[in-house]
């Protein structure tokens, strides 16, 4: 996929806009979703995100939205359903919700992350919690995302519950500061900072694509892992383009360049370098062994069962779907905070994901049916979990088709020029 047309063509004007919330909302709308005049802006948020949702609505109309459609999804309503509802409610995808999801086609979407009560579902029957998924709604959104028919973004809003989880106290201000720093809101001109940042990430992708790598090798304490890449694998970072050429930044923050691995080729061991938040459980010191592309052994000092449970979800969950490189410049990584939220934590350092393949980085494959995808080496599964494997002690090399090693990261410093 071509990244050359990526153009964050936003000029945020800051007369009197001293409010951090409004500045953030503008960033979400103009850089993240890159809303085009005349588009509908869909916003998905939790009730606790109401302040940001409202600011995004204002920013959306200011940026020329034809209509801003905010939907609040309430975790307490979900809890009541899991606790008291009939079985059929758990998987119900009401027609109108599917239709709303289909209406995203050709429009902009901003999703707000940041759980207000991360433990809300912890005391419920976990089997029912796991089953409670609006599959048809999710699939229809995912299909449009993969078809690059939506310019979308995910951004986080700090809540007391999340802050409590991260800092041990509900210090929302501190979490705000950490988020602001991560998304470059502390810059005098955040948009210019983002333009520069995404250009740098795109340049890295170009460097990596030029090498036409056949594999990536991670080595460090407890880690010696080689992951194969596909001929179709491209490196993506600093945003993606819709099929109509609207460049958007799907994750705020983003520090990664990522690609699609060959699900059939992964050999060796890997030790995770940061804690992983997995549906209310924190997994620590995760170690995995790979053979023939498959995870054959899982160890962890805590939370191993949560990982094993996830790997048992379907027969393809044990194969890799993403490889991502992040260097020590990362604004997330430099803060040394474990955010217990993938949106942030995966941007702290290099990570890999087991489960479904990201297809933005293999555009030739996107749109193929699941069987064919698997046949061509791109994994299809109902899970996708990123875990962090990078750090100053982990070296990353590219492996070229003729077996040569090319240093990519040493002591968290980018080696390619």
């Amino acid at each position, binding site marked *: 996929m071509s990244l050359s047309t990526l153009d964050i063509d936003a000029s945020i004007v800051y007369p009197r806009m001293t409010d951090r919330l409004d500045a953030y909302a503008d960033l979400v709308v103009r850089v993240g979703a890159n809303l085009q005049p005349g588009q509908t802006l869909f916003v998905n948020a939790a009730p606790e995100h109401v302040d940001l949702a409202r600011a995004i609505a204002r920013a959306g109309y200011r940026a020329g939205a034809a209509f801003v459609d905010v939907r609040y999804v*309430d975790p307490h309503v979900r809890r009541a359903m899991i606790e008291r509802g009939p079985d059929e409610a758990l998987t119900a995808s009401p*027609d109108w919700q599917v239709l709303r999801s289909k209406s995203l086609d050709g429009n902009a979407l901003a999703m707000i992350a940041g759980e207000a009560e991360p433990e809300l579902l912890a005391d419920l029957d976990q089997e029912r919690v796991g089953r409670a998924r609006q599959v048809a709604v999710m699939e229809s959104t995912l299909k449009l995302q993969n078809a690059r028919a939506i310019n979308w973004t995910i951004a986080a809003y700090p809540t007391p519950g999340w802050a409590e989880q991260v800092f041990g106290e509900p210090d929302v201000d501190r979490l705000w500061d950490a988020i602001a720093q991560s998304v470059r809101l502390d810059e005098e001109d955040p948009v210019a900072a983002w333009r520069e940042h995404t250009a740098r990430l795109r340049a890295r992708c170009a460097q990596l694509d030029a090498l036409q790598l056949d594999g990536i090798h991670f080595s460090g304490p407890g880690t010696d892992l080689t992951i194969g890449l596909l001929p179709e694998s491209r490196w993506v970072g600093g945003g993606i383009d819709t099929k109509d050429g609207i460049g958007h930044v799907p994750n705020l923050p983003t520090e990664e360049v990522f690609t699609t691995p060959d699900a059939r080729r992964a050999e060796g061991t890997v030790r995770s370098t940061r804690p992983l938040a997995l549906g209310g459980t924190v997994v620590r010191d995760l170690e995995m062994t790979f053979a023939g592309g498959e995870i054959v052994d899982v160890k962890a000092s805590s939370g191993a069962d949560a990982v094993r449970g996830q790997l048992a979800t379907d027969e393809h969950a044990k194969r890799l779907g993403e490889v991502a490189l992040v260097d020590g410049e990362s604004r997330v990584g430099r803060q040394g905070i474990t955010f217990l939220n993938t949106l942030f934590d995966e941007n702290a350092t290099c990570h890999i994901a087991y489960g479904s393949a990201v297809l933005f980085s293999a555009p030739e494959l996107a749109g193929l049916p699941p069987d064919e995808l698997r046949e061509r080496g791109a994994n299809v599964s109902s899970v996708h979990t990123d875990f962090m494997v990078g750090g100053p002690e982990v070296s990353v090399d590219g492996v070229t088709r003729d077996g040569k090693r090319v240093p990519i990261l040493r002591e968290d410093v980018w080696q390619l020029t």
Partner: protein
Amino acid sequence: MAVDVETDVKAKNRLERYAELAVRVGANVEEGQTVFINAQIEHAPLARALTRAAYSAGARYVDVTYRDQHVRKAMIELGPDEALTHTPEWQKERGEAHNGAASIWTTGDPEPQLLGDLDGERVGRAQMKELIEISRRQMVDRVVNWSGVAFPNEGWATEVFGEPDVERLWEAVAFCTRLDEDDPVAAWREHMSRLDSRAEKLNESEFDAIHYRGPGTDFTIGLLPHARWMSALFHTASGRPYVPNMPTEEIFTTPDPTRAEGTISSSLPLALLGEIIKGLTFTVRDGRIVNVDAEQGAEIVRSQIASDENAARFGEIALVDGTSRVGKTGITFFDTLYDENATCHIAYGFGIPEVFEDDMYDGMNISTVHTDFMVGRPELEVDGVTKDGKSVPILRDETWQLAE
């Protein structure tokens, strides 16, 4: 920080019991029904309690959709013209899905003046008309057992009392909805049967018109021979009883939209589309409002009655006497669900299909608006006028004059 655990538990119980009353008596949710909850985002605690109560009552699926007045404000203030009346396709689909389902909506505006500084004409125009039409049609077809309940909150309490005394507002709400009774369900049964018997007496009187006389008011409105007086104990077409408003103290009918003459003045402020309307006076000729005066907010009313060709005609007249629990509180709630039950009121716009026997809606006013405004007060005299022109007192000094 000291926490009064007992009060906290009591308050939680009250919310759960309130939600249960709304689900079991208000919407009267049937086992296996889908339940739609349409709430303002600030009403999330009530919406959540309603969801719990609905699932406990056997709901198949509970669908909560929050609306956000601030998002609406952004649209009116900053959005293009077309956005104002836009109804997203999914909203229509969701509206249609109410067919055969139960539905509960919530009131209690946390910021009643939020839209006060905006262009009143745009505020009045900002309506999802297509969605309203769907729900009007469902009312005519009587395919939804629905109810409205209020959620006490700081902003609303401040509007009412001048201070954010939510507890005081909760007590008023509990009193008005009979939640203070030992057995609220039994109390509601008794209450509705008393209102029904009053309605029966009015039906037996076969009045041809109602005449209002009082300060700023001398107004006669014609009745339709096939329109009944009734209480708000409704039945769906399939026979499911439900109470669409909690509280309810009124008996009402749908008038003849072609016969109304005179001048009628409001007796209470009216919260409408994010503004407070005060001192409203209508001049009416041949059933149609021809002039709107108000001390405050006239523009919104004018815009609303111009929104379609029948919006300026009347759809409801309702009688409430001094025994009303809402009236007895002496509180102006700035919320139609409450204030219309404090005293007599009239609505311009859409009629009430329920009052017509055998689905004969001929002559009922059809419009996309339905706005109740309060006209009752002690000085207001209400008479029934018989076909031969005789006047029969119905209300004097807010006391019911007909036999019960």
